[in-house]
């Protein structure tokens, strides 16, 4: 529609201005703060970034984050794909399983963290109760007090809570696969595995990229789940980068250092999101 040169700007302006004020401004402030310019002018000072390379806690935290995100996203895709394939079948009672399949994802992440903290609790937790009562274990074990087991427990909790969304995206993708392709494969005598590899997977490519990218972004910046479940502990065994930034900023008042970590984290997330952004923008033309 032509002849309306300024109209679109009137429509977009309120949201765009708001985006600048409540999002752009804090983001720029964070960058300035990371360069030691929080609240004062002068020459930028990037020493905080140098500290990233020498701080062993940053290294350990970054490694935690990579392990956590790597395992969680992989498990989400594997479980999500399996359940999506099952729920894509026509069968009686499917709606009930669909409802149940979504439930974990509806739980606010901090609440999920608290519930799993209780499940893995030493004295009154469910895991120990089952193991003790079945005789598989003689003494209660402090799962969340052990550096490796606690990371494992946090991963288990987030695998549980987050997979339904990946499953839903994949299920929507499965339902968009043209039926005639399956029919053609059946006529050619392709088996189940062959059909999955040659028909289903190629059709799901875009959807899969989007699901993985979004999940990587969400799991990397996850905060409430870990805060509620372990608070990053024991020590910093389960601490991820979001928690590290929060603690530095609001507990240790190391605002410059915290901002530099946050800026690096933001840059990594934007880079990771590029495939999604590019795919989505291409569809806008």
């Amino acid at each position, binding site marked *: 529609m032509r002849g309306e040169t300024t109209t679109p700007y009137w429509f977009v302006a309120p949201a765009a201005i708001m985006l600048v004020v409540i999002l752009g401004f804090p983001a720029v402030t964070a960058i300035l703060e990371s360069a030691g310019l929080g609240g004062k002018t002068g020459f930028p000072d990037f020493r905080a970034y140098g500290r990233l390379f020498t701080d062993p806690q940053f290294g350990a935290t970054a490694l935690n984050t990579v392990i956590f995100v790597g395992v969680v996203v992989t498990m989400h895709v594997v479980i999500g794909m399996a359940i999506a394939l099952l729920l894509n079948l026509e069968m009686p009672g499917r709606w009930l399983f669909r409802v149940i399949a979504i*439930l974990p994802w509806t739980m606010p992440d901090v609440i999920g963290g*608290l519930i799993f903290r209780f499940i893995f609790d030493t004295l009154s937790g469910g895991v120990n109760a089952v193991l003790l009562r079945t005789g598989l274990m003689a003494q209660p074990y402090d799962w969340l007090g052990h550096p490796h087991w606690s990371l494992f427990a946090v991963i288990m909790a987030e695998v549980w809570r987050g997979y339904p969304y990946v499953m839903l*995206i994949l299920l929507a993708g499965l339902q968009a696969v043209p039926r005639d392709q399956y029919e053609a494969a059946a006529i050619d005598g392709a088996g189940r595995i062959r059909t999955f590899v040659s028909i289903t997977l190629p059709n799901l490519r875009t*959807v899969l990229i989007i699901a993985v990218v979004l999940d990587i972004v969400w799991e990397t910046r996850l905060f409430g789940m870990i805060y*509620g479940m372990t608070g990053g502990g024991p020590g910093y065994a389960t601490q991820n980068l979001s928690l590290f930034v929060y603690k530095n900023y609001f507990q240790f008042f190391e605002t410059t250092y915290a901002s530099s970590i946050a800026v690096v984290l933001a840059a990594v997330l934007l880079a990771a999101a590029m495939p999604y952004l590019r795919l989505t923008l291409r569809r806008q033309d």
Partner: protein
Amino acid sequence: MTRTNLGPWIVTYAALAAMAAYNLAPFLWMLTSSFKTDMEVTQIPATILPHSFTADAYVRIFAQEGFLKYFLNSAKVSGATAILSATVGIFAAYGFSRFEFRGRTVLIAAFLASQMLPGVLLVGPYFRLLSTAGLYDTHLGLILAQTSITLPFTVWMLKGYIDTIPVEIEQAAMIDGASRLQCLWYCILPNILPGLVATMVFAFLLAWGDLLWALCLITDPDKQTMTLGITNLVGQFRVLWSDVMAATVIGCTIPACFYLLLQRYLVQGSAGSAVKG
């Protein structure tokens, strides 16, 4: 489905039953624990199924811990966030959907990319910003902060719905002399009403489930949100898990009900346009 080949179906149902058990187990643990007595919830090892049911934990969190207030605070903040982001968002969504203009792609990219930013990048500067503006420790400040998260995806989701409405309806209306705003109000809004409601509910739930912003921007116990109140229950020296679980049951119920009602719209939010292909 032929009678002769039941094997695969048994496997399918068994797998789905396993999925259901896996998904429901933590919910059941939460529910049953919330109804246990003080004595039983501290028993070692824990009982898998409660021996006796009591609603004491629920009475305590409402009567002593002020959860009614937290609940209302959360409802107020999340509700205002949903209304604010939908009101501002609908205009931008309409603009992006119906016009070609210079800077459109850049703006859309900015809206999309801003959804990828980590909350911890913004929350520190936000804390300073609100302190300067005198909005620290106020619900208004928290609402604005939540809106910075919900606005971009609200715009995106609403644009997706408006895209599905044929332009011809508006063209006819404009020939009859309708203005753009009238088009939006009379032609678009009635047609995307379910989508608008779904978008608002998602914004509501995003704010409802948030911990980070409330944790950093609210200190007054009277202004605490639900999630913050629950977290602080555990922060105390001795954790009475039946109380915590009763609080989590209440914190979970609203999102679970809303999401189940809105199942159809679930994927639309961030991945919809890609799935639609």
